[in-house]
C-alpha cells in the first residue's frame, strides 16, 4: 500500500488512483474493487451506474489542471475525497482549484494533491487547503518522506490569508508599528 502524507503524518493509503490509459474510455474502463479515485470523465459518465459504490463511500474523483471544480459542485456531498492532479509541479492551476473547492464550494473532506507533487510545494499546498499529499510513486524513499514533512512548515507565519490561515498576517497578529 502506498504511503502518503495526511494531516502532517505518514499513513498507508488504500485509495487507488485510476487513470485512463490509451485506448480506454471513461465508459468502459474496468474499476477494481475497493476504494478508487476516478477521473472526472468517469464520474460524469458513470455516476448513476456507480451509485451503490458511491453510497459505500468507495468513489472519489480527481480533477486535472484544466478541469473546473465547479463541474462537481453538486456532487461534493457524495465525495469522501477529491484529488487534484499536478501534471508538472510547476503547473500551478491546481492551487486555484483547491482554493475554489475549499472556499467557494465549502468542500470539507479530504483534498489530495496527486501527480508531480514535491516536498518543495508542501507549504503552499497545505495553505491552499490540501490535507493529503501523495508524491508520485517511488519519488521519495521512506526516510526522504519523513524528512519532507518538515517542509509543511517552511513558512511559519505567512503574510497572506489562505485556507489554512483564514486571516492575513496583519489580521492574525498584532504587528508593532
Amino acid at each position, binding site marked *: 500500500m502506498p504511503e502518503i502524507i495526511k494531516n502532517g503524518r505518514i499513513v498507508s493509503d488504500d485509495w487507488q488512483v485510476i487513470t485512463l490509459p490509451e485506448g480506454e474510455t471513461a465508459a468502459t474502463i474496468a474499476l477494481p474493487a475497493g476504494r478508487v479515485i476516478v477521473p472526472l470523465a468517469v464520474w460524469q459518465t458513470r455516476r448513476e451506474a456507480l451509485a451503490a459504490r458511491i453510497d459505500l463511500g468507495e468513489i472519489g474523483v480527481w480533477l486535472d489542471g484544466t478541469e473546473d471544480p465547479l463541474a462537481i459542485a453538486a456532487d461534493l456531498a457524495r465525495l469522501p475525497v477529491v484529488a487534484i492532479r499536478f501534471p508538472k509541479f510547476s503547473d*500551478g492551476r491546481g492551487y*486555484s482549484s483547491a*482554493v475554489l473547492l475549499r472556499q467557494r464550494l465549502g468542500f470539507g473532506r479530504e483534498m489530495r494533491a496527486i501527480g508531480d507533487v514535491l516536498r*518543495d510545494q508542501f507549504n*503552499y499546498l497545505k495553505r491552499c487547503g490540501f490535507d493529503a499529499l501523495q508524491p508520485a510513486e517511488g519519488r521519495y524513499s521512506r526516510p526522504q518522506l519523513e524528512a519532507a514533512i518538515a517542509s509543511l512548515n517552511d513558512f511559519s507565519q*505567512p503574510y*497572506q490569508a489562505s485556507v489554512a490561515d483564514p486571516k492575513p498576517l496583519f*489580521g492574525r497578529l498584532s504587528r508593532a*508599528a
Partner: protein
Amino acid sequence: MYQYDQYDQQLVDERVAQFRDQTRRYLAGELSDDEFRPLRLHNGLYIQRHAPMLRVAIPYGLLSSRQLRKLAEIARRFDKGYAHFTTRQNIQFNWPALEQVPEILAELATVEMHAIQTSGSCIRNITSDPFAGVAGDEVIDPRPWCEILRQWSTFHPEFTFLPRKFKIAVNGALEDRAVIRAHDIGLELQRDESGETGFRVLVGGGLGRTPIIGEEIASFVPWQHILTYCEAILRVYNRYGRRDNLYKARIKILVKALGIEAFREQVEAEWAHLKNGPSTLTEAELARVAGHFVDPAYQVLPSVDRDFERRQADSKAFSAWVNRNVRAHKKPGYAIVTLSTKHHRIAPGDVTAEQMDQVAAWADEYSFGELRVTHEQNLVLADVRQADLFALWQQARDAGLATPNIGLVTDIISCPGGDFCNLANAKSIPIANAIQARFDDLDYLHDIGEIEINISGCMNACGHHHVGHIGILGVDKNGQEWYQVTIGGSQGNDTTLGKVIGPSFSASEMPDVVEQLITTYLARRHADERFIDTVRRIGTAPFKQDVYADRQPQRKVANA
C-alpha cells in the same frame, strides 16, 4: 524606509533555510535539474554563460547605506568586486558559485534583503518611481503601497507557479516614472472626488516578444480592496493563462485573446467573491506600513542656497552636472541627485564595490542614509541639501559617478546581453560602450538634448528597447549578431512602442547608425524639439531614408 519586524525577518530567515536545504538536495542528486530550476529561479539564481547569476531584490528600488555596504561586501567576498543594477531596480551578481548562494542569501538576510521571486513564473519585485516621496508632482506616495503589495505577493500560496512571470508597477505622481503601461499590472494611485485614495488599474502591458501597452481594467479601485482586486486578476490568469507555449503565456496574451471587456467580466465575477473578504486592507495596517515612509527630519532652508548659485556660476562643469543630474525637490533648499553609472568604459548599471561603499558614505553624509535605484540603471540620492551639492559632485566625479548625462544619448539603458546572459542573441554592452564613445563630447551631447537609447540583447527586452526613443535589439542571423533598430518609442504617460526602421545592422555599423539618426534629427528639428518630438512630427521615413541612403544593398545587410 520599511524596517522588518520579527515576522518579516522570520520569513526571510526561513527562506534561507529552505533554499539551503534545496541546494543541498540538488547537490546530493535528490533534486533533478528540472526540479531545481524553478526553485533556484524563485531565489533569483540563473545558471549563466560563465557562472551562475544571482539577482537580488531591491524592493521598489529603495536601499539603505547599510544594505549597499553589504552588497559591496558580497561583491568582494563572493564575486569579482562589482555588480550590475538592472532595469527592474534590482542588482545582479554575475560570478557567484552555486554552493555559496545559500551563504550569500544568509548575509543578505542580516540586512533585511533577499532574492525572493526575482525570477521565475511568479510575482516579481514590485517597481516604482525612484523619486517617490520627494517629487513635486506626487499625488500619493507609492512606497507604502509597494510594501503592502510586496508582502501580499511574497510566497503567495496560490500564485507562486503562474504560467509566466508577473510584474507589477506602482506610480503615484502626475508623470509616470514607473512605466506602468508596460507591466502585467500597472497601478496608478489616485484620489476620487471625496479625496479617498484608490487605484486606476491597467492590465496586460509588457514588452518582450509581443510588446503591448496595458489597458485599463478598472478606473478606480478603493484602496481597501486593492489586494482582493489583484487576487481576482491573478486567479483568472493562473487558471486560464496559456501554459502550452512559453511565448504566449504572459497575461497580455490572455487579455488580448479574451478582449479587455470579457477579461474584466471574469475578474469582476471573481472579485465579487473576494471583495470585503479577509484580505481587505485595514486603516491600521495602512497606518503601520505608511509609518515607515514619513519624511526625514528636513531642515528649514531658503529655497535657493547662495553658495550653491555662486558655485554654478564659477564652474561650467558643476553647472552642467546640476543641469542634467539634479532635480527639484519638494522641500525648499533640497535637491534630488542622480548618480550616473553610464560611461563608455563600463557596462551601463555596473558599479564596483568601492563605488558602492562611496555611495553609501555619501548617503550617510548627505541624504539621510538612503538611496534609490532607477530603472534607467542609475542611483539616486533623494534628499541632498543644495549647500552640499558641490562637495557631493566633487566626490562623485572622482569616483566616476558624475557623468553629466542623465537623459542624454550616453545615458543608455542596456541589459547584460550576450557577454553574460544565456538567453541573449547578441552582445549589448559593447554596443552601448561604442555609442557612448562616439558621443563623448559633452557640448555635442548637450546640444543633442534629451534622448533615450535602450538596448536589449534579445526579444525578452530586458533593456526595454521598444520604449526607447532609439531602440536597439540584438538578433541572431545564421549564428551572427545583428541589430534591429526602432525609433519613436517612449516611456511615461504617453508610452508608445517604437517602429522598426528597416533591415538590421552589424555591430560595427551601430555607432554610425545612431549618429546618422541624430544628424537627421539635428537637421530637421524645430527649436526646443526633442528627438522623440521630431520623430513624432515627421515620422520615421526621413530617418530611414538617411540611414540607408549610402548603404549598398548587398553590404552586410540581413533582413530584419
